[in-house]
């Protein structure tokens, strides 16, 4: 791959993403974990920008970092006694490591490389310069014969989740 602005940025964001992910799963202190998670999510947002999906990137920042991460931090703080556990991994951590590694290898060697990897037909495939814009996305969401129904259902789901969360987390007394 040629060494240009795009690839540089891609590398940076990938490193951020994966590094943040690793930090998330490995950090002993959950607050750190949350911060790493946010970092990782930032990386993903960056990747979205690179993939010319700015709307999703903004949503990523807004929803994940603005809402979910804050929520997680809240949860961590509400369960404070659990924030610094001496033993952060359970008994099967080694096995889990193996399995995750296996999974990764399978995905990579078994599917990604053979189908889209270098030297395959798909490798040459270049994204078109023209690309649907945010407007198209908005239209797609509210267009009668595209995604308006799932859109409504999603809103319903959010409402239900909100109510459910409140009901579950409320103190009975």
């Amino acid at each position, binding site marked *: 791959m*040629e*060494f*240009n*602005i*795009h*690839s*540089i*940025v891609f590398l940076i964001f990938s490193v951020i993403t994966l590094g943040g992910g690793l930090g998330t799963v490995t950090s002993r*202190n959950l*607050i*750190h974990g949350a*911060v790493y998670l*946010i970092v990782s999510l930032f990386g993903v947002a960056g990747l979205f920008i690179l993939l010319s999906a*700015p*709307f999703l990137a*903004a*949503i990523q*920042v*807004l929803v994940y*970092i*603005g*809402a979910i*991460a*804050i929520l997680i*931090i*809240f949860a961590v*703080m509400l369960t404070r006694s659990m924030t610094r556990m001496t033993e952060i991994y359970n008994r099967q951590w080694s096995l889990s490591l193996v399995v995750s590694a296996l999974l990764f290898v399978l995905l990579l060697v078994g599917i990604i490389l053979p189908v889209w990897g270098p030297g395959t037909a798909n490798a040459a495939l270049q994204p078109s310069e023209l690309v649907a*814009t*945010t*407007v198209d996305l908005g239209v797609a969401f509210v267009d009668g014969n595209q995604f308006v129904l799932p859109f409504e259902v999603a809103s319903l789901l959010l409402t239900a989740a909100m109510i459910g969360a409140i009901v579950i987390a409320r103190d009975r007394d």
Partner: protein
Amino acid sequence: MQECIDIFNTFAGCLTASGADPGLAQFLSILLGVVLVAMGPLVIVIFLIWVERKYAARVQDRLGPNRVGPFGLLQTFADALKLITKEDITPAGADKLIYNLAPIISVVSVILIWAVVPISPLHIGADLSIGALYFVAVGSIGTLAIMMAGWSSNNKYALLGAFRVVAQLVSYEVPLVFSLLVPVMFAGTMSMQGIVEAQLGMWFIVFSPLAALIFFISTQAETGRAPFDLIEAESELVAGYNIEYSGMKFGLFFAGEFLHVFTNALIFAILFTGGWLGPFVYQVPALGIIYLFAKGSIFYLLSLHLRNTLPRIRIDQLMSFNWKFLVPVSIANLILVAFLWKVIQLIGLLPGPENASDFLAHLPAAIIMLVGNLALTVVVLQMLRNVGRRAVAANAVSTPANAELDDQPYSLPVPH
């Protein structure tokens, strides 16, 4: 516009000529642009602090800074120097990483906003197609900084303050976004530049003053200035989330806050009073900067005035004001405006692109929207009045004699 781009391109070209990898050169040139955009606010904030102090002094019938430099203009530099030279304490048991990260993020979250602030027809950091959304998204990062600060500094007051603030900020984001949607809907785009240009004929504040008001209030709350300054409620929690901070970190927090206020003022100017629009702005684009900052300063001073004159409200009042009043009103406003806008489009009062800059062409539409808004305002005020009355009635001692039987649980009669 092209010329301004070319500055960077020539820079990149120069780098390549001097043997750098083209990709790298391009990257560096963009980095330069980013730095330029980011520097602006950092310079501005220094004067903002001066303005703030002067204004506060005037309100409180003092002189304010007047020793260092003319009118004490250099006071802030002096303070900055002092802050830098001060000892930088990190409390024991604090979470170093996060503790040090927090102030930076709080400033960065504000500076990031400047990337989409159109300061003139030509000059804008990046005219994202989702500028408005970007503004909201980045703004929500500030919350994070406060959370981190409050938690990491291992102090119960700090944590309490942080909890409060986060609750406040997250809540007030809702009406903020709802009122932000109104100009976006008018302009039909989320790009800041687009929103500004859509106001060529008529400022959006005329179309929907209510949205503007809600936006202003919630930005006021977002920045945690009086009357919403629960963040540093000295009387209740010693100094809020940044109690443990000292030296430049503390300074950063405050710089971030001042900057945030001013940025919000600018955003308000952009969204509702046509940003850099003004006479001859297309001939002399630089004028746009002046117009924008002039408009922005007005709203900045307005919020300063509020801060210095209004008392602080209780946290429960704050929350109920948001959830029980602002949010419903903003939603109602959004629906109403959307409806009216559609109606106007249908009856063809909306001027087309050919006379987008024609003031008179916009007049009928503006009048309709205005009337609709005012009607809604009246309704809301009416409801407020009833609520108030009910509250009064509730406070008044109610004897069984005049107790209302409607809403008391009684069993219905069963005929035997």
